[in-house]
């Protein structure tokens, strides 16, 4: 009896299930599909069945992250312990005695800067520590123009160039620079330092190759760091070494997918002041199919007959340089920087260069000032001649005459970098810190005699995996900047002061104490 009941129950429920299934829309289709799909082919049907089972399992599986394996899971107490143990590194390293002494004696200028500047201690000194090469700072015409622009446009454009920041003056300045250099286009950045450090990552990314001079400045190194590219260095201004590195890159990359390749160097080196051989560089870049980024920060407005930079000085067509980066801040007495090149190169930067898209545009008055001073250089090249006369006059007082220092700067470079002669360094076994200290003493001694000069100061090499180069060290140097604001007589006098100060410091008892241990 019970068995029959169970049987009836099973039959009933089977019937229920079937009728419910038939009520489901599409069930008839499914049955037809399954009936027709068998087709007397068990292997194929089995494959399809396995596929369907796999599919259902995939759909039912729960999701998981593949990145989570990289983290260590910690308990609450472990986290507390770690937090307890952690002592933060100071954001800034403690000041050394040398830095303290330097900042205590820092000369402070009162009022406008110029060839003769007044300090807070009331003395007026000859200022050879500013990039005021043509004394545009004191130029009334430039000042008047800037004030006019200020009244029309206000101070800042209050927006990035792509977001209401571009004004007609910016476009005029861009056109002026492009026509001055003879390139297709030009893009103006709001800050000279961040120009090249933004141009490099706009064109380079992971896997790209940058071949750079070993002594490139901090701004370029920051660019390398942001670009994440492979950086290979060659010896400073040694084009044979550059060729060796280029050949090695070509060889290493022969069977790999093609990447972008760049040579990055400075026209006038910020850290050593010397000049690169551009025609040879162009020849190498063309032979090995690299692009060239030339940093003209220190040479634009300085080299060449009318200050068009290295390309004018060495008679190279500027269109041969793929990206020509310059500054409007130093000799041009305005602010910001630029990158000149083909329209493609320029337009690409307008949306992909970080410091162009994310920082406010150049103040209008600086744009007009740049235009104005650039025009003055083009129309009155005599001031460049005058500046070079002054450089020559200063050099005559220092480089061959001084027994202690040697000028590493190129002959036309108004920024004269004076390093201690190698035999002085060797015979006294001076470390980098001792050289810095001696040179600072020279700066202080020169200032005591009424001439303001400075030392070459740079940031330490950028940390991070890219752009790091442990082999290269900044060479301590004195920095003497020329200006046309002083007559040849005054320059000569200042030169004598500097030379005597250096001699006095280096022959002093306290410094010679370090000297020549075999004499004692």
């Amino acid at each position, binding site marked *: 009896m019970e068995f029959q009941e169970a049987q009836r129950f099973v039959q009933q429920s089977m019937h229920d299930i079937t009728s419910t299934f038939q009520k489901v829309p599409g069930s008839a289709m499914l049955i037809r*599909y399954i009936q*027709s*799909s068998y*087709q007397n*082919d068990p292997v*194929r049907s089995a*494959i*399809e069945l396995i*596929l*369907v089972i796999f*599919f259902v399992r*995939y*759909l039912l*599986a*729960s*999701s*998981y*992250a*593949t*990145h989570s394996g*990289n983290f260590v899971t910690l308990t609450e107490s472990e986290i507390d312990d770690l937090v307890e143990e952690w002592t933060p590194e100071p954001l800034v390293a403690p000041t050394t005695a040398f830095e303290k002494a330097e900042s205590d004696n820092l000369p402070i200028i009162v009022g406008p800067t110029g060839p003769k500047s007044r300090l807070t201690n009331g003395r007026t000194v000859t200022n050879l520590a500013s990039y005021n090469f043509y004394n545009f700072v004191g130029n009334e015409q430039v000042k008047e123009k800037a004030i006019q622009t200020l009244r029309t446009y206000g101070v800042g454009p209050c927006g990035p160039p792509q977001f209401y920041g571009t004004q007609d003056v910016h476009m005029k300045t861009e056109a002026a620079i492009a026509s001055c250099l003879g390139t297709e286009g030009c893009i103006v950045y709001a800050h000279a330092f961040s120009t090249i450090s933004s141009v490099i*990552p706009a064109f380079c*990314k*992971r*896997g*790209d190759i940058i071949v750079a001079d070993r002594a490139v400045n901090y701004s370029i190194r920051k660019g390398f760091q*942001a*670009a*994440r590219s*492979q950086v290979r260095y060659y010896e400073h201004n040694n084009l044979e070494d550059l060729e060796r590195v280029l050949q090695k890159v070509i060889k290493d990359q022969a*069977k*790999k*997918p093609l990447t972008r390749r760049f040579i990055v160097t400075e026209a006038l080196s910020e850290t050593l002041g010397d000049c690169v051989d551009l025609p040879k560089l162009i020849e190498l870049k063309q032979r090995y199919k690299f692009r060239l980024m030339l940093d003209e920060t220190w040479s634009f407005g300085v080299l060449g007959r009318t200050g068009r930079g290295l390309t004018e000085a060495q008679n190279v067509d500027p269109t041969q340089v793929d990206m020509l980066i310059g500054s409007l801040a130093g000799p041009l007495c305005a602010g910001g920087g630029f990158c000149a090149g083909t329209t493609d190169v320029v337009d690409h930067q307008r949306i*992909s260069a970080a410091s162009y898209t994310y920082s406010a545009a150049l103040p209008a008055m600086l744009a007009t000032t740049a235009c104005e001073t650039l025009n003055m250089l083009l129309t009155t090249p005599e001031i460049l001649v005058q500046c070079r006369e002054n450089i020559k006059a200063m050099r005559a007082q220092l480089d061959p005459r001084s027994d202690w220092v040697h000028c590493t700067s190129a002959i036309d470079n108004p920024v004269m970098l004076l390093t201690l002669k190698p035999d002085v360094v060797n015979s006294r076994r001076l470390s980098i810190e001792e050289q810095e200290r001696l040179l600072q003493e020279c700066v202080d001694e020169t200032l005591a005699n009424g001439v303001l000069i400075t030392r070459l100061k740079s940031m330490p090499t950028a940390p*991070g*995996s890219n752009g790091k180069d442990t082999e290269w060290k900044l060479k301590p140097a004195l920095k003497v900047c020329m200006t046309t604001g002083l007559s040849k007589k005054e320059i000569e006098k200042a030169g004598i002061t500097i030379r005597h100060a250096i001699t006095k410091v280096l022959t002093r008892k306290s410094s010679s104490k370090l000297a020549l241990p075999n004499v004692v």
Partner: protein
Amino acid sequence: MAEKTGRRRRSSSLVYKEPPETIEHMSDQAALPNLNANWVNAKGAWIIHVVLIAALKILFDIVPGISQEASWTLTNMSYMCGSFLMFHWVRGVPFEFNAGAYDNLNMWEQIDNGAQYTPAKKFLLSVPIVLFLISTHYTHYDFTYFTINFLALLGVVIPKLPYSHRTRVGLFSAPPEDR
């Protein structure tokens, strides 16, 4: 230097896993939302698969001289080839926004930041399977058509499996770069 040598693949193996990224590399990936992969989670992105398949079918139908069987097989093959190219062959991001942080990963591996069995991945796996089942049905279970369609299906299903995550076949792709 130590981290660089760690990234090199053992030269002998034919199949290898893409090595994990460095901390710096991962933070670059996380710096911005991955626009290249995120759109697959949008509503329209799911519908477009169905629309494209229908469009392909119509296209092959209006070409004269193509039988229903061939038309379904062609539709299936075009979809499989297209999706293989898009999801598994091309690596990196077509529009650069984070210094090439995704250059070593194909689009499937970029979707949902590499997580497995996410809704988008389930959907993208189900489309080729359903399409395959439909096309075998309409090719009337002809053995030749079945083989062609099934091999094409394997070509897109195997790279989608969690096992294949970051796996590379040395025959098709060069060893990973030091990046």
